[in-house]
């Protein structure tokens, strides 16, 4: 199986966010909201870290 680094990070974030959403909240609506929040933070963190590493390299 071949997968890009970003796709791997996005899939990783999605799966973790689903589990976090279900286990860390009680109401279905809050589960969806918290899962989406985690997923957004993971992706933003990944992109931010990538740019920081790019900045260090250049």
């Amino acid at each position: 199986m071949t997968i890009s680094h970003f796709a791997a990070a996005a899939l990783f974030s999605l799966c973790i966010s689903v589990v976090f959403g279900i286990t860390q909240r009680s109401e279905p609506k809050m589960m969806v909201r918290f899962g989406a929040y985690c997923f957004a933070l993971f992706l933003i963190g990944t992109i931010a870290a990538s740019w920081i590493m790019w900045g260090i390299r250049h």
Partner: protein
Amino acid sequence: MATPKSAAAENSTFPYLVLLAGWLIPGAGHLLLRKWARAGLLFAAITTMFFVGVALQGKVYTPNTGDLLDILGFIGDLGSGGLYMLAHLAGWGQPSEQIAIADYGTKFIVVGGLLNIVAAVDAHSLAIGRKRA
């Protein structure tokens, strides 16, 4: 304030059965509690992480007393329960060559196991009434 406990929670062995089932099969604890959607989503998320990890040629740790990170990796992998046993029976997770993406695979498998423990404990909390259903 104490939360009302269900009839199932009164049975002292049921919460442990839920915990064990949730560990052995991802989402099975929630399935026993009739939380169908949660069980399906947990099963899908955790098994996807595990099988993507194996497909990326990630390493499945075996019991060891060597490097601390290897010991922690084994503990994380063990969290997958039945999937970990399946990987051993099938001989998965023993990459013959070292590639960069395989390290991602190893992390997928370890984190999938840790998430399975979180899910099983969540099912146990629901069963004993610690968490609102």
